[in-house]
């Protein structure tokens, strides 16, 4: 812990000039020193955080088959260009004529994303997928309100990411859940029953979180449109679609795209990402402000859109992430992007084939970029999905996404992405198969895993029951909180 290192008075800040706080600021507005704040040297800082980094799993260390997360390689080239001073040191309130390169990049990225997704207009402002969802739903709401009635509900499949219903609530809608049929798809008949003039939209993920492409998508869109609703596509699984099918052709009216998934920007341990929203022409006037527009002499910013939903974030969104995604798209070009999706499908189907028989496959439908297994074959030995996940850590692999989607009991959701070699996929498959064997022959071994990680299974119940969310200076008198500290 950085707070447990160092010594009072130590600092690694060096600035020759020493200045006092101006007398014009009344002393009652000033703080005393910050109790407990770090006092360490620069080498201590580097050692501390380098050591912490070594306690992390990462895509640059090993395979990361997290379903619906698209943990592909994050090209170092993109990191290098995002750090160019002409991008990293831009002030967002500089006059438009001084940020022409940035505006051109954004304008071009918007049209590239529109082309890839088959949509007409794009906003780059949302900071992440969930903010993109909220923005997209606000656009739908604004559009329907203008037509006279914002409506009351949003229909969300039971396989959807949790952000879908959460975003619907935040947009003032009630959530109406629709179940999946035995093939993991939406039943058009069931949708026809639920889709009334109370429903503003259907939020659909396609391919869905089972890795299944809903081949009825056009029929589904027709049902929604017939009742005056709109179709929202969660683009989290866009990595399966490039060059294979465009959402814009499926009847989708609004979608968001996770640049930190399909377009390779690094996850950073949980962000920053970016969640651009693409819409059909009829919805373009509802997009957030400002919009980047091309003029005769260059690019400018348009704040004056009376029907816009407004602003969802300050300035222009996560610009640094946009630079990375732009670099990725122009690096790969059309052929490269199409190859991405085809290879992602190849890898997922290869793993599916290799694991079939060793683990229970949740659905027999062909899979796209990810596939879902379960722990059904291992349950009879008392081994569950969580145990399999933890045992994988001992084999040096990050587990798949577990217990999601919620409709599959004990789900193990595997998305290998296109950037892995066949050797890596084989090694992962062999580890999984070895664990299936261990579950049968020595279940206790699996149930007590992991053994080789920096820490072993953590007591999550204790963390939630007695939340300790910050470091505090140890008390001298045998504070009970100290008991666990080694």
């Amino acid at each position, binding site marked *: 812990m950085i707070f447990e290192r160092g010594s009072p008075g130590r600092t*690694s800040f060096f*600035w020759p000039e020493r*200045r006092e706080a*101006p007398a*014009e600021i009344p002393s009652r*507005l*000033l*703080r005393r*020193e910050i109790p*407990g*704040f770090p*006092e360490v040297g620069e080498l201590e*800082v580097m050692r501390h955080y*380098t050591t912490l*980094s070594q306690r992390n799993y*990462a895509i640059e260390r090993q395979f990361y088959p997290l379903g619906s997360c698209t943990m592909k390689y*994050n090209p170092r*080239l993109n990191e290098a260009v995002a750090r160019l001073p*002409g991008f*990293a040191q*831009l002030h*967002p309130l500089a006059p438009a004529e001084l940020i022409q390169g940035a505006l051109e990049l954004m304008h071009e990225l918007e049209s590239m994303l529109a082309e890839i997704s088959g949509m007409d207009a794009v906003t780059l402002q949302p900071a*992440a997928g*969930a*903010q993109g969802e909220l923005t997209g739903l606000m656009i739908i709401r604004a559009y329907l309100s203008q037509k006279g009635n914002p409506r009351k509900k949003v229909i969300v499949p039971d396989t959807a990411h*949790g*952000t879908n219903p*959460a975003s619907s609530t935040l947009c003032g809608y009630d959530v109406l859940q629709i179940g999946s049929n035995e093939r993991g798809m939406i039943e058009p008949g069931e949708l026809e029953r639920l889709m009334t003039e109370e429903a503003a939209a259907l939020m659909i993920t396609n391919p869905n979180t089972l890795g299944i492409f809903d081949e009825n998508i056009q029929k589904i869109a027709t049902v929604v449109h017939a009742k005056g609703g709109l179709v929202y596509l969660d683009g989290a699984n866009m990595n399966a*679609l490039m060059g294979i*099918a465009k959402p814009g052709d499926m009847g989708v009216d609004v979608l968001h795209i*996770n640049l930190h998934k399909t377009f390779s920007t*690094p*996850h*950073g*341990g*949980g962000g*920053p990402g970016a969640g651009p929203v693409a819409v059909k022409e009829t919805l373009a006037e509802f997009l957030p402000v400002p919009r980047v527009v091309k003029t005769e002499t260059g690019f400018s910013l348009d704040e004056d859109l009376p029907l816009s939903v407004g*602003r969802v974030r300050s*300035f222009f969104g996560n*610009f*640094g992430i946009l630079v990375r995604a732009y670099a990725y798209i*122009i*690096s*790969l*070009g059309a052929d*490269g992007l199409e190859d991405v999706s085809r*290879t992602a*499908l*190849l890898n997922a189907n290869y793993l599916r*084939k*290799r694991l079939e028989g060793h683990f229970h496959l949740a659905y027999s439908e062909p899979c796209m970029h990810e596939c879902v297994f379960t722990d059904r074959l291992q349950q009879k030995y008392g081994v569950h999905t969580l145990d399999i996940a933890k045992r994988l850590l001992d084999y040096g692999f990050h587990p798949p996404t577990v217990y999601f989607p919620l409709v599959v009991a004990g789900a193990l959701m595997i998305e290998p992405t296109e950037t892995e070699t*066949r050797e890596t996929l084989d090694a992962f498959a062999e580890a999984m198969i070895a664990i299936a064997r261990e579950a049968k022959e020595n279940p206790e071994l699996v149930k007590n895993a992991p053994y080789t990680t*920096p820490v072993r*299974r*953590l007591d*999550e119940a*204790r963390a*939630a029951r007695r939340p300790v969310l910050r470091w505090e200076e140890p008390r001298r008198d045998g504070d009970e909180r100290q008991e666990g*500290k*080694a």
Partner: protein
Amino acid sequence: MRYTPHTEADRRQMLDAIGLSAIEEVFAHVPEELRARARIRLAEGLSEVQVKKRLSALAARNATPGEWSFFLGAGIYHHFIPSTVDAIISRGEFATSYTPYQPEVSQGTLQAIYEFQTLWCQLTGMEVANAGLYDGASAAAEAVLMARRVQQGRRRIVLSRALHPQYRSVISTYLKNLPGVELIEAGFDETGASDAEALARAVDDRTICVVVGYPNFFGVIEDLAPVQELCSRHGSLLIAVTTEALSLGLLKPPGEWGADIAAGEGQSLGVPMSLGGPGYGFFACRKKFLRSMPGRVVGETVDSEGRRGFVLTLSTREQHIRREKATSNICTNQNLCGLASTVFMATLGKSGLRRLAEINAAVAHETCARLVREAGLTRLFAGPFFNEFVLRVDDLEQRLSRLRADKIIAGLPLARWYPELRDSLLVCVTEMNEREEIEQLVKSLTRR
């Protein structure tokens, strides 16, 4: 292909193993008319050298500090970033890891977040902090949403007009579709602080919360004592929103003023300006609101051998568990920017952070005094400020364009956001503005 490593032989063997002759067979069930239209019409791929050239050409068409003199703040600040910061956040172990859902192999990220939460508690004087949100504006909006959750039955939300205009926009966007909410703005006085009488008129017993900038959009350090008193008289929550996080190295923290929530933008502390993003939103509050908080939280626990370890906790608030009943829809946040700030704060440390804040306040005051004395300009507001201040400048647009010819961006004209503040310029001076730049600014603004 770039980044897809398979050889032709690999592909062949894999297809054979699956029992296919071409990968297209896997998606044969995708309707024909979709497949037929799916080709992407974009240029061919570029080499690394070509990509760098293209991006460098775009970057070269943007003005950066160094080449230009910038006196712009207003929510994004140009500050010193020690080299330790990029060295750590560039490490693949941090940059290319996922959200720490498997704690046994994510202790690096988890402990760093725990330290981040602690640092923000210390800096704001609050009891608990989360792992961060998207940006200052959405953090302010989330603060208002949380206040609404814990103050059920009330409906009014009062925003100071001296709060950052984009923050007010985002709050209004977030609230627009929620029932039973009334958004009211209260003006500012001649000191540039929120007008006490306007606030008193606006706040009643049905008021959920009052949101004020600290320092506010005009750079003014508001005395929060009267606002706090007003809030507690009506049972309303006080939300203090900070856009210039470095100021908290010097100013009395929101917690000591009795604020219930402190939120804002963390970019100042170790994150490059990058056209305003990515930075991150910070969010801290009273412990009693813990279970209503938005966003991820890391907690301390022990492993099966009793060793200290960290996990994501209290996730029953979050969307992946609670779905439509979650406290927020946020999932991905801005974690790596939070790590940048953690390393920044650790490197500067207790005394360094204060000294950097003092330098900012000192150079800004000195520049302001010279602009008044030597250039004959007047300060629009009398209130105390940190590193930003508002000047009255006659013929503002004309003079700004003349300064631009000398590669000086003297500040932000306020009329765009405050039509009543014509000929007013918000000027920000930080430790990165060199002496010569300041000389030049004073000289250029002095009428000859």
